[in-house]
C-alpha cells in the first residue's frame, strides 16, 4: 500500500513537473541608436477613414516607449518546449479606421484566425505568405468575418490591397509560449517546465535575436534584448 502511494507520487512528479516546477522568462526589449522617425499616414483617398484620425496616425514599423524600449517585438520559445497543440480560441484581427488592430498578432499553427471589418469601406486582406498558402480575400462592410488557419510557422507580412498604407504581421508559431511587447518593451513567458530553452525575439525591421535560457525550477529568469536602430 505504502509502496503504491510512493509510486503514484513519484509518477506524478515525473509526469507532471509543471504542477510542481514552472518558471518564467521575462525581460525587456530596448534599442540603441536613433530610430527612423515614423511617417504620418495620408488617408485622404479614403475619407471615411481619414475622418477617424483628426491627427493622422503614423506608420507602426518602429513603436517605442520611454527609456528606449521597443514595442511590437514577438518574443517566443523557439526551441526546448513541446510543440503544443493549437489552442481552441480564435485570434482576432480587426480592420478599423483603415488600420490593422493590433499591428502584430501571434498565433499557433492550426489556430483559427478571425478577421473582421469594422469600417464602412471594403478591405482586401492579403497575407503575403511565402511558406504557407498565399491568399487574399475581400471583405465588404457587412460581410461575415473571415476565418483562416496557417499550417506552417512563418512570419507573414499582411497588407490590404485596397489601402496600400495598411500593414500588419501574423507571427505563426509552433509554440504557445509567446509574448508581444507593448511600447514599454516588457515581455513575459510563464509556465515553463525546467529545461533548456532558446528564446527568440523578432522585430519586423531590426531582425531576430536569440538567447539560451535554462529553467531549473520555479524561478523567473530575466533576459533583455537590445536591437540596433537603423538609420534608414
Amino acid at each position, binding site marked *: 500500500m505504502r509502496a503504491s502511494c510512493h509510486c503514484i507520487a513519484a509518477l506524478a512528479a515525473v509526469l507532471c513537473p509543471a504542477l510542481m516546477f514552472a518558471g518564467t522568462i521575462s525581460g525587456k526589449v530596448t534599442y540603441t541608436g536613433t530610430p527612423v522617425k515614423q511617417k504620418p499616414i495620408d488617408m485622404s483617398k479614403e475619407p471615411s477613414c481619414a475622418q477617424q484620425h483628426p491627427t493622422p496616425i503614423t506608420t507602426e514599423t518602429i513603436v517605442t516607449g520611454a527609456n528606449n524600449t521597443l514595442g511590437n517585438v514577438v518574443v517566443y520559445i523557439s526551441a526546448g518546449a513541446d510543440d503544443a497543440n493549437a489552442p481552441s480560441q480564435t485570434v482576432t484581427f480587426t480592420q478599423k479606421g483603415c488600420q490593422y488592430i493590433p499591428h502584430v498578432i501571434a498565433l499557433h499553427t492550426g489556430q483559427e484566425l478571425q478577421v473582421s471589418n469594422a469600417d464602412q469601406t471594403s478591405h482586401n486582406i*492579403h497575407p*503575403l505568405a511565402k511558406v504557407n498558402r498565399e491568399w487574399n480575400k*475581400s*471583405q*465588404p462592410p*457587412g*460581410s461575415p468575418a473571415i476565418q483562416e488557419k496557417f499550417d506552417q510557422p512563418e512570419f507573414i507580412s499582411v497588407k490590404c490591397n*485596397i489601402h496600400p498604407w495598411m500593414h500588419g504581421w501574423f507571427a505563426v508559431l509552433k509554440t504557445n509560449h509567446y509574448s508581444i511587447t507593448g511600447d514599454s518593451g516588457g515581455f513575459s513567458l510563464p509556465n515553463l517546465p525546467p529545461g533548456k530553452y532558446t528564446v527568440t525575439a523578432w522585430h519586423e525591421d531590426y531582425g531576430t535575436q536569440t538567447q539560451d535560457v535554462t529553467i531549473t525550477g520555479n524561478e523567473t529568469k530575466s533576459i533583455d534584448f537590445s536591437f540596433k536602430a537603423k538609420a534608414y
Partner: protein
Amino acid sequence: MSEASAHAAQHAAPTGFIRKYVFSLDHKIIGLQYYGLALVAVVIGMVLSWLMRIHLIAPNWPIPGLQFLSKVGAPGGVMTPEYYLSLMTMHGTLMVFFVLTNAPFAAFGNYFLPIQIGAEDMAFPRFNMMSFWTTFVAFCILISAFFVGDGPPLSGWTAYAPLSAVGADSGPGQGLGQTLWGLSIFVFCIASLLGSLNFIATTLDLRTKGMTLARMPICTWAWFITACISLLAFAVLLPACLLLVLDRVGGTSFFIPSGLNISDHLQPHQGGSPLLWQHLFWFFGHPEVYIAILPAIGIVSHILINSMRKPMLSQKVIIYCMMSIGFLSYMVWGHHMFLSGMNPFSALVFSFPTLMITIPATIMTLIWLGSLYGSNLRINTASLFCLGFISMFVSGGVSGFFLAQPSIDIYLHATYFVVGHFHMVMGVAAIFAVFAGTYFWFPKMTGRMMNETLGRLHFWLTFIGTYCIFMPFHYLGLAGNVRRYSAFTDDFLVPLLPVHKFITYSALFTGAVQLIFLFNLIYSRFKGTPATANPWEATSLEWSTPSSPPPFDNFGGVHPVVYHDPYQYGVKSSTADYLMQTSPERAGETP
C-alpha cells in the same frame, strides 16, 4: 459556279437522332444550334447584368443566394469588388462573342444563306458542324471559369495587359480564370475562322442557276461581307490570345515590361509592351463590332423591304456602304487608344477615318428613311423591331461622333458615355435585328407563326425599356461618371446615384419583359398557328422551299432557277404585288 462542285459538297439525308439533331451536317440544324447557344449565353449575360446593376446601387446589400454561386466572391451574399468585375468581364465576353457574333451571323446566316442562294447546304458541311461544336467547346471553357479557384477573370472583355498577362499576382480571378478565358477565346477564333471560310466559299461557289451576285438578297450580302471581315479579324485575335496565355504560363514577356512590382511581388518579366496587346486586340476589336452590326443591317433591310412592299431607294448603295464600312473598319482601331500613350499625332490619323465611317452609316440611315416614304409599310412585330433598330442605330451612332474626336475623348473616354454608345449602337440594335429575324423567319423554321399580340407587347415594352436603360448612360458620361467601377463612392459620383437607381429598375423591368419573348418562342413552337408557305408574301428563295421547315436538302431534290432580283415588290403580278425570285413571270406595270 459548277454543277459538279454543287453536288460534290452535299451529303445524304441524315438518319438517327444523333446525326439528325446533335452532330448534324445540315446547315439549318447548325443554325438552330448556334441560335440556341446564343439564347443560353444571352440569358446568362443578362442575369449577370442584373447582378451588376443591383450591386451598383446597393454595394453592401447581400444578394440572397449569391453565396452559392461563389462563396469567395460573395461571402454572405455580399458581392466583393473583384466579383463584380468578374461578372462584368463574363457579361461582356458572353455578349460580344457568344451572342452578338453568334446570333445575327452564325445562327441566321447558317440557316438562311444557303437557302437564299439556292444551295442544298454549305460548301463544307463537316467544317460547319465542327465550327458549331468548337464554339460550344469554347463556351464550356469560358463558363468553367466560374467554377475554378479564384473565379472568373476580372480584366474586362478587353483583357488589357499587364493586368491580364502576369497571372494571379494582379488580383483574384487572374489565376486560372484568366487563362481559361484566353483558351476559350482562342478556340472561339478557330471556330469563327472555319465558319467564315464556309460562308465565303458557299456564297462564291454554290449559287444556283440565275443567282448572280447582284440577285443575292441584301442579308446574304451582309453575311458574305461579314465573313470576309471576320477572316482577317479573328486571324489576329487567335495568335494574340496565344501570346497572352504564353505570357501567363509559358514564361514569355510579349506584353509585360520589366520592373513591375505587383502586390509586393517583383515580376520576372522584361521586354514586353502592354500597348502591343491593345493594338492586337483592337485591330480585331473594332472590326468585331461591325461583324456584330452588319448582319443586323442586312436582316433589317431585308425584312423592311418585304414590310414596305417596295424595294429600298437603292440596294446597291446599301451594299456598297456595307463594303466601305468593312474596309474602313480596319483603319480605325486606334480610336480606342487615343489616351493610351501612343504618339499623339496618331490620334489625329485614326480620328479621320473614324469620322469618315459616319458617312456610309448616314447614307444607309437616309436610304432607310427615304425608302419608308411612299411605301405601304406593313406593321407587325418584325417590322416594328426593324423600325426600332433604325431608331437605336441613330441614337447610338450620334454618340460615336463625339468619341471620334480625340479632344472630346479626353473628357469622355472611359466614362459611361462610351458604355451607352456601344450598348445602343451594337448591343440593343443587333438584338432588335435578331428579334426581327426571329419573328420573321419563325414560320419558315418551324411551320408556325409566333403570337402577334405577345410579340407587339414584347416590342413596345422592350423599346421603351432599352431607351430608359441606355439613354441615361450618356448623361452620366457627360457628368464624368467613370466606367468599370464596382461602387460609386467618390465625392462626385454619389449625387449621380438616383440616375443609377433609375437605370437599374429599368434594366430589371426590361429583363423581365424578355420572358414574354421566351414564352412566345417556346409556346409557338408547339402550339402556334400553323403558317402558310409564304405568310409575309416575300420574294427570296427561302420562301419557295417545299415545306416549313425546309427538307434536309432545302429544295426537295430540285435546284431552283432564279429569274429576278429579290426586290420585285410593288409590281403587278398574277398573284399580288410581288414576284418571287423563282417565278418565271415577268413583272407588269407597277400598280
